[in-house]
């Protein structure tokens, strides 16, 4: 798994690539939590364009960030999930609680 980040005002942008499973779930969690805190950001844009596999450990890590961030009054939105990943996000119910955008710019405008 590779993670890149950027900050736009109060929003942290995370670009993930690779497989989101139990092997990387902790690192994913830790990195995002640390970056949110360090940059004092309130919202999260999660760009999943480079993700080619996700299972319930990966879904759990996303849901955990969603819970923390929304409890703090922030928003979590998803960008660019490939079809096979999007299908799993949909089955899990995550797409019912988060908004989805095609590009990071669209997502940032909605913040």
């Amino acid at each position, binding site marked *: 798994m590779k993670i890149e980040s950027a900050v736009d005002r109060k929003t942290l942008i995370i670009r993930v690539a690779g497989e989101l499973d139990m092997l990387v779930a902790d690192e994913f969690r830790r990195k995002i939590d640390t970056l949110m805190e360090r940059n004092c950001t309130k919202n999260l844009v999660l760009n999943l364009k480079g993700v080619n596999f996700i*299972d319930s450990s990966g879904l759990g890590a996303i849901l955990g960030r969603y819970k923390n961030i929304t409890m703090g009054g922030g928003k979590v939105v998803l960008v660019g999930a490939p079809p096979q990943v999007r299908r799993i996000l949909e089955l899990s119910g995550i797409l019912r609680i988060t908004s989805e955008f095609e590009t990071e710019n669209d997502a940032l405008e909605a913040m």
Partner: protein
Amino acid sequence: MKIRNQVKLSFMSVPENVPLARSAAGAFAAQMEFTLEDLEEIKIVVSEAVSNSIIHGYDNDPNRIVTLLCTIYEDAVLELVIEDEGKGIPDVPKAMETAFSTDPERMGLGFTFMQSFMETLKVESAVDKGTRVIMTKKPPRRVAASSELISEEN
């Protein structure tokens, strides 16, 4: 039922082996006529079952053994068996309920995915003895491609 092909993989209960196990199962299943979506689902269910063995069966103890047995039977059925000798599941029906998880950061969707992506799912578990998850899936019935139909008519 006669076996057409079989692979057995025994590995230490470390997270690094989760991607290995699901890739092996996916590659093994690829010799059957599964769709790409089916192969993706097979990788997910193996990932879920192996993660369960490591996290729940062995409480993340890295020095135990998980076994994956992949079999193709003569009637074109794929069977996947994931087995551990861990602490077992005291209440299997409860563990299989959607959104049941002992860990708030996991979604409790593992068994739900296994149920929805596979044709059959059986969970055999005994406390302090271990858990065996047995799943089967059949490739979709082959439909002749339209180009083949046209060439036959000509």
